[in-house]
């Protein structure tokens, strides 16, 4: 059984969702619960967007975010001038970004049944509001937000932080500057 698990994990992750969508009612395989722990579990979802908010994911072209989109570990979220973005994470923490912000979901792990918890965010510029959720309730030591100037440890619950632009790396600074796109690139 344990030898089969990694394979099942892999094979089941997508079909489980697909089956659910089709409304099929097959008897659940016994190893199905292993599939939920797969690395592809979302960290959260987009609850609201105003203005231009994008995700940079695994080197792909920036993708405009909309209500309902899933957010994953390693995602880089950027908001444009005058934009804002609201998210709800899997541990039911809520967070939002103000205009001109860049946030990296460096690490997110929420499997309380295994005691596997982690929430590391990095705000390289801009503003963020947050109300922490289950992760901080269960183990505050694993929740932090880094910035280029300071880090914060969170024992709960409702906090805001701001980092002025200009402290990021040049690469980070270039990301999400959609309103100042290089000449020749049409901005919609």
């Amino acid at each position, binding site marked *: 059984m344990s030898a089969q698990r990694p394979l099942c994990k892999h094979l089941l992750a997508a079909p489980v*969702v697909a089956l*659910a*969508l089709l*409304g099929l*009612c097959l*008897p*659940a395989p*016994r190893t*199905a*619960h292993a599939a*939920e722990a797969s690395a592809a579990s979302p960290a959260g*979802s987009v*609850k*609201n967007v*105003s203005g231009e908010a994008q995700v940079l994911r695994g080197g792909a072209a920036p993708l405009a975010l909309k*209500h*309902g989109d899933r957010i994953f570990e390693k995602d880089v979220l950027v908001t444009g001038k*005058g934009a*804002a*973005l*609201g*998210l*709800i994470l899997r541990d*039911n923490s*809520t*967070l*939002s*970004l*103000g*205009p001109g*912000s860049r946030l990296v979901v460096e690490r997110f792990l929420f499997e*309380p*049944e*295994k005691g596997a918890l982690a929430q590391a965010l990095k705000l390289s510029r801009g*503003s*963020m*509001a*947050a*109300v*922490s959720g289950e992760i901080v309730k269960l183990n505050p030591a694993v929740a932090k937000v880094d*910035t*280029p*100037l*300071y*880090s*914060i*440890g*969170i*024992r*709960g*619950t*409702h*906090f*805001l*932080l*701001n*980092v*002025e632009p200009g*402290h990021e790396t040049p690469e980070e600074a270039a990301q999400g500057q959609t309103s100042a796109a290089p000449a020749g690139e049409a901005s919609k």
Partner: protein
Amino acid sequence: MSAPRKTTGCLAALALLAALTLLPGCGKPRNVVLLLPDPDGHVGQVVVRNQGGQAQLAQAGSAVRVADAKTAPTQPEQLTPAETEALFGAAQRALPEKPVRFILYFDSETTRLTPESQALLPKVLATARERNSRDIAIVGHASAAGDENYNVDISRRRAEAVRKLIVKAGLPPEGIEVASHGSANPLVISANPHEPKNRRVEITVR
């Protein structure tokens, strides 16, 4: 010290400072961490640290500033409403409401909702519509009694039954995720392995 060139420099610096004071925050660093009360009124705690040192925020409405990575955070202070709005207004207004959780119970050994839980469904649907939710988690849980494989299986079938009910009632299926945790996530810690409160499906409407 009183060299004219230095005086000119000082005057220029003063003029700049005067200009900055017209902005909210009065030229102080705008790298700020602010602690607010939770929606339920409770006040948490945040520790801000860097190479220069650390500061702790434990009072509602208190904030610290950070000039740079090597300078310790300032002592906690209260921000003016104008500066709070300038720094955080947009982010604060975009902060989503907390998700809402519902707990449903079933007749023993079945995927049939108890009458009380059946009666709760309209409220689940209304909440999902009100929030325009595109992210609903349905998680089945079992009590500790019995074989864990069976527990995982019945928890999943119950969660799946609930999903069918709410999709049939018209909620968009694409935002709904179904899972089973077996007995690993009890709602209450109980000496009774058959604890009925733990045999449940939790719906989280985000």
